[in-house]
């Protein structure tokens, strides 16, 4: 019964999406006074409620492990801890698509409920676009991946969940990315609405901006968390593999970053109108492409995709429909939309254009490197594109962008002169050069880590220059957001460069009582104990580790064997100090009775994720700042209207 309620709610929501689409379109054609137009907003709000019910039902069947539901039987197990039963609800294809649709419908309900700034026609067009996008996903869920499908015979026991995925990381990682993707879908709907009604105005950018910011914060968190998860779960100390799945989340982030900056130009200066719309379309395309790559199975092999093409084809069709449609609309309308205000090269807009173009170029490189192997594989030529390609080619665009990022925020809008900020430019250039020379002399490692270290240093200092000479208490929150986000980029860059330059590895085979060392750490294997968990057994190595001969700490990395399904994993242990992490992994037993240990000392590696968190914090501050200003404006406007009414009444 529970599953059926979920399914019914989903069908009803799909019907409401149709109503929302029709209402919006009629409002566009017949004017906003028509009766159906009045239903667009309520349809969106009710739809959000229904999908939330549907998702709650899915959580419920997973919580009680209802094995008559196919999805539960395939992905859950009665012996799993409750938290992993629940997170298992979206740790699979159908559940994750329902999660996507849920977030999307809730976002739609929110804009239908609160967004009143834009002209009503534009809002109706936006909601119609939102309904149209949602409808595609409802169709996908209901027709080809129904999460509530029953089995003719209830299963006796579930098939379990991949032990690699039994981790709190899984509970948090996909939802954050989906919040990001969905935020970009809202930005996309706004862009389509603005294009349809030719209302590409600063107001449109202001209405869209919180959604971009929100999406960007979630994407940043999602990528940061995903990277950390891969780092400690895979057990080899790598934090970014340029894997297509990772790229699928990085590409929307790059597009969203560009969109964020271009939308702020549009909001403040009414410039870059066409470019902002274009980026809005691109950002959502990248989310769709990411979903397609991850969900279609095309990544394992182009041929695996061809064996069961139904789902992949469906998403590909949606991708073509939305993106093709949006691009067509763009091509038809872009000509009639004025480019907006002009500006000179030495202006904040100029710097932001550099940022936009460079980010777009990096995006293109990542896109090419991700899709190219798939393309050639279709012709039976297999090529590998990996870190040795992405790192240097990306750097060609990233470092010039970072240089502009260091000084861009110091420029004034519209027209400025380099001479005015020459002192700051000289300071940043001097820092950069000094750091570069110092690092070369001291460490003399490969070029990219050297550049990374010195740019991190220069950008880190430069990110605080916009605060110079200002009363810190009166700096707007959004400006603080920018400063912190830029500083976070420098911090993350420092972490990545340090990881590349200073990591030390030690593979050791120790008998019980044996010792070894990695970097400043001394390591002693006290004993190896067998232990058992709810659905696994493990060998745990009891290690005493001490930093520079100090007080030893006891850690116990494990090598685990799961039995449903049978799989071996390593549970690494990280010892975090302010200046880096010791990374310890337990391996197997050698023939001679010694145990294999993998140890890394990674100085400052944690800065990668601290940086990511700072960037997200900066985004969140900017979001709070913007929303507060909007709310204040709204209340001022309401008070003005009230006063006007009072005056009228008095007269």
């Amino acid at each position, binding site marked *: 019964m529970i599953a059926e309620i979920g399914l019914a709610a989903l069908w009803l929501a799909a019907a409401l999406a149709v109503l929302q689409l029709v209402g919006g379109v009629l409002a566009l054609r017949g004017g906003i006074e028509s009766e159906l137009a009045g239903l667009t907003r309520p349809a969106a709000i009710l739809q959000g409620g229904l999908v939330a019910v549907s998702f709650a039902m899915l959580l419920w069947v997973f919580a009680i492990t209802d094995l008559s539901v196919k999805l539960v039987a395939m992905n859950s197990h009665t012996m799993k801890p409750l938290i992993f039963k629940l997170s298992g609800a979206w740790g699979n294809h159908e559940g994750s698509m329902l999660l996507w649709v849920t977030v999307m419908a809730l976002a739609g309900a929110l804009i239908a409920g609160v967004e009143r700034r834009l002209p009503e026609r534009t809002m109706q067009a936006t909601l119609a676009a939102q309904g149209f996008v949602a409808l595609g996903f409802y169709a996908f869920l209901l027709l080809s991946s129904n999460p509530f499908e029953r089995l003719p015979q209830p299963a006796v026991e579930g098939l379990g969940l991949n032990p690699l995925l039994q981790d709190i990381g899984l509970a948090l990682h996909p939802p954050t990315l989906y919040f990001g993707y969905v935020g970009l879908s809202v930005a996309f709907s706004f862009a389509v609405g603005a294009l349809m009604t030719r209302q590409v105005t600063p107001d449109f950018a202001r209405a869209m901006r919180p959604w971009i910011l929100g999406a960007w914060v979630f994407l940043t968190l999602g990528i940061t968390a995903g990277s950390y998860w891969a780092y400690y779960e*895979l*057990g*080899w*100390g*790598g934090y970014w*593999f*340029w*894997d*297509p*799945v990772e790229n699928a989340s990085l590409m929307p982030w790059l597009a969203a970053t560009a969109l964020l900056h271009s939308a702020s130009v549009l909001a403040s200066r009414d410039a870059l109108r066409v470019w902002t719309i274009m980026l809005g379309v691109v950002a959502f395309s990248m989310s769709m492409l990411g979903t397609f790559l991850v969900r279609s199975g095309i*990544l*394992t092999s182009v041929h695996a995709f061809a064996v069961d093409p139904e789902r992949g084809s469906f998403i590909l069709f949606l991708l073509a429909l939305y993106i093709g449609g949006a691009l067509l609309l763009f091509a038809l309308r872009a000509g009639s939309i004025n480019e907006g205000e*002009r*500006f*000179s*090269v*030495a202006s904040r807009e*100029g710097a932001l*254009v*550099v940022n936009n*173009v*460079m980010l777009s*170029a990096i995006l*293109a*490189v990542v896109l*090419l*490197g991700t899709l*190219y192997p798939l393309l*050639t594989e279709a012709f039976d*030529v*297999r*090529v*590998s*594109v*990996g*870190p*040795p*390609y992405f790192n240097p*080619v990306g750097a*060609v*665009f990233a470092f010039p962008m970072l240089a502009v990022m260091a000084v861009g925020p110091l420029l004034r809008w519209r027209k400025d002169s380099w001479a005015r900020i020459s002192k700051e430019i000289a300071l940043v250039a001097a820092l950069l050069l000094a750091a570069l020379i110092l690092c070369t002399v001291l460490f003399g490692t490969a070029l990219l880590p050297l550049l990374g270290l010195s740019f991190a240093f220069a950008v880190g200092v430069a990110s605080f220059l916009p605060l110079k000479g200002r009363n810190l208490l009166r700096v707007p929150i959004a400006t603080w957001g920018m400063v912190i986000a830029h500083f976070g980029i420098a911090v993350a860059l420092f972490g990545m460069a340090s990881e590349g330059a200073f990591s030390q*590895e*030690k*593979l050791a*085979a120790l008998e019980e009582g044996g010792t070894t060392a990695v970097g400043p750490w001394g390591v002693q294997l006290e004993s190896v104990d067998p232990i058992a968990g709810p659905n696994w057994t493990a060998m745990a190595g009891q290690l005493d580790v001490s930093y520079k001969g100090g007080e030893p700490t006891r850690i116990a990395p494990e090598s685990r064997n799961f039995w449903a399904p049978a799989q*071996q994993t*390593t549970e690494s242990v990280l010892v975090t100090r302010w200046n880096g992490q010791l990374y310890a992994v337990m*391996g*197997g037993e*050698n*023939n001679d009775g010694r145990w*294999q240990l*993998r140890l890394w000392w990674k100085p400052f590696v944690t800065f990668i994720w601290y940086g990511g968190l700072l960037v997200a914090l900066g985004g969140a501050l900017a979001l709070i700042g913007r929303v507060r200003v909007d709310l204040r404006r709204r209340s001022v406007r309401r008070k003005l209207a009230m006063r006007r009414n009072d005056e009228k009444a008095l007269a």
Partner: protein
Amino acid sequence: MRALAILLAALIALPLAAQDSMPPAPYAYRQLDDPEQEAAAQELMETLRCLKCQSQSIADSDAPMAGDMRHQVRIRIAAGEEPGEIRRWLMDRYGDYVSYQPVMSATTWPLFAVPALLVGIAGLLFWRRFRRRA
């Protein structure tokens, strides 16, 4: 007769069982003693693809095949072979797919042409945008 059958069965089963529990090759999880050679091996391993995994180099993988390849790389480096030779040897065995090192060839030239083109487009965009004003 029966004993013979069991013996035969055991003989047939033996290689299978042995294959399953084969210990990893000696240098799969062991570093070379010479740090310079180990660094060279590490650098090479990071640009070789683990053929059984998804997007991991052989330096980042627990797959037995990655272990065997690490072993091969290490003993060949220790025997004084150049990293380039080892890469070529592996590419002859497993195809170009095994190497992450970008090489310009008939099948990969777009990977290099497109970024070059992007630089050109970026330059053109800036020039067109700012030529009248700057």
